């Protein structure tokens, strides 16, 4: 699922992300303005895949720091770090590493070497984000020296009892191999989505390696800095207006019934909330009860039963933001369970700006049946401040 990006694509992403960062004024205005991307340094994961590219930044030929841009979708977002005050000079670092290599080789073996015992040198994030220089001969490691201390990095330790992502202080380990599969999958989705959106936007003029507000300014009026989608009557959102209605819960414990009602109403199955409550075993208006956690699966069953199986429902555990995005992009509303409460989701918004690897604002358009007999439409709920336990999708079965 996850993948490496081509170098040209990483360069393009670096230019786009740094221009957006510069435009957002998240850094002092002089830090990135009129900087150019210099030739990047590939940094490998210990498993051999390219992990990110470090681009030195130059302002009028003078170093103005560097930016690390992901070359692997498992990292979740293109912009990993910007270090405006640091200097990155690949050739100087390599020269130091060679010197250290020879010094250590001479210490071990007093013979004079005329020919280097390596044929390739590469940078490795031996313990992400710590860097080392790896010397290889015929693709096999000769030695790996930690950057700047030039201490040899020991081979990967055989420690079967060690938990993933819990390395010792000075241990080589692979971020790509140790990352949880589910996290990797989510990161990949996030990354691909961002690439897609950057491609869809009209930001091409700012992808050539120069960072400048003047380049972004004229484009801002024609691009949206947030991406938003809301449920419509059909997927042809140009023809029809937003088409989703709020139902307040009719008792203080019928949030699930009200949520199921909103979703079924969208598909034109117009049941009363009392009928839905009865189907879900939630009592009557006079004597209502909530849905016990042991019966969260009943929502799937009833969405299908109450649509005579015209809807195929599914329950997602611990849904992530892109679970919502992918359903809403298919024009399908969702039911969302949070601790003690149920609501429906009919839209999302996401800021295009990404700062130092963290996303901008991510929000959901929530049709919340609380307070009773009224409900509220939340535009927007901050996705990063809520705990999402379950989500339910329903898809019309077609031929």
């Amino acid at each position, binding site marked *: 699922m996850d993948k490496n990006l081509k170098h040209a694509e990483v360069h393009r992403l670096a230019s786009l992300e740094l221009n957006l960062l510069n435009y957002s004024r998240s850094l002092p205005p002089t830090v990135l303005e009129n900087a150019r991307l210099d030739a990047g340094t590939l940094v490998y994961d210990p498993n051999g895949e390219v992990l990110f590219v470090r681009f030195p930044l130059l302002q009028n030929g003078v170093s103005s720091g560097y930016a690390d841009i992901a070359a692997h979708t498992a990292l979740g977002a293109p912009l990993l770090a910007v270090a405006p005050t640091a200097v990155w000079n690949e050739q100087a670092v390599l020269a130091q590493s060679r010197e250290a290599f020879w010094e250590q080789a001479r210490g071990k073996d007093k013979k004079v070497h005329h020919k280097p015992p390596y044929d390739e040198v590469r940078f490795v994030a031996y313990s992400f984000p710590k860097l080392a220089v790896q010397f290889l001969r015929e693709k096999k490691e000769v030695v790996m020296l930690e950057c700047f201390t030039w201490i040899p990095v020991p081979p990967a330790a055989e420690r079967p009892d060690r938990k993933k992502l819990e390395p010792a202080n000075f241990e080589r380990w692979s971020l790509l191999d140790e990352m949880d599969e589910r996290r990797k999958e989510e990161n990949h989705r996030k990354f691909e989505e961002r690439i897609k959106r950057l491609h869809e936007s009209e930001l091409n003029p700012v992808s050539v390696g120069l960072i400048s507000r003047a380049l972004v300014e004229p484009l801002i009026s024609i691009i949206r800095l947030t991406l938003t989608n809301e449920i419509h009557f059909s997927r042809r959102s140009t023809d029809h207006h937003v088409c989703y209605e709020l139902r307040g819960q009719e008792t*203080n414990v019928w949030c699930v019934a009200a949520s199921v009602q909103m979703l079924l109403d969208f598909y034109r199955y117009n049941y009363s909330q009392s009928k839905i409550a009865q189907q879900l075993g939630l009592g009557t208006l006079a004597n209502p009860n909530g*849905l016990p956690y042991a019966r969260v699966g009943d929502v799937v069953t009833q969405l299908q039963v109450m649509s005579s199986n015209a809807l195929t429902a599914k329950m997602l555990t611990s849904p992530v933001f892109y679970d919502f995005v992918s359903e809403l992009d298919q024009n399908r509303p969702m039911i969302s369970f949070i*601790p003690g409460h149920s*609501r429906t989701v009919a839209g999302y918004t996401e800021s295009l700006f990404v700062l130092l690897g963290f996303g901008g604002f991510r929000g959901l358009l*929530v049709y919340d049946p609380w307070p009773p007999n*009224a409900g509220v439409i939340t535009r927007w709920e*901050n996705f990063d401040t*809520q705990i999402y336990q379950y989500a339910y999708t329903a898809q019309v079965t077609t031929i």
Partner: protein
Amino acid sequence: METGDKENVRRKAEALLQQGFLSPERDPAVHVGEPLAVMNPDGGQHSWFVPLEVGPKLAGFAQFLTSLVPLRVSGFQQSSGNYDRCPDVADWTDVSRILGRASSMAREGEHLSEPILTYDRDPSRLTWRVLAKSSSGASRYLFVAGTAVYEASGSQGLG
């Protein structure tokens, strides 16, 4: 609560309205009201509730953590610019009206405490809580969420 805190909260709410929260276009009729503290059930402050008012009607509200991180902006109006069916601001902010609602569920001889703005199970389920105490010393909680009044059920499921 410091007056300065509340002023910062109001400014934050205003900024969210300008950014298209509540409605894509900022409606000049919407006025940011006086922030109220939302308390945790155990007594500490959880967040801020900021009424968004159009005259006597509550168009919606913003909710912020005490660190001023926005939790959400919610609206009661179902069609843009129409606030007729929104609740009264007083339903959510006037302590005497809230107490009046709670007293409709009080039993004879029960004494009602001052209402506290809190939440029922999840912070998105905002409600006022009133302690009802009988002369025998027995007590129970009554909740007032807008026009709805109910008694704490102790239910552990989703509601």
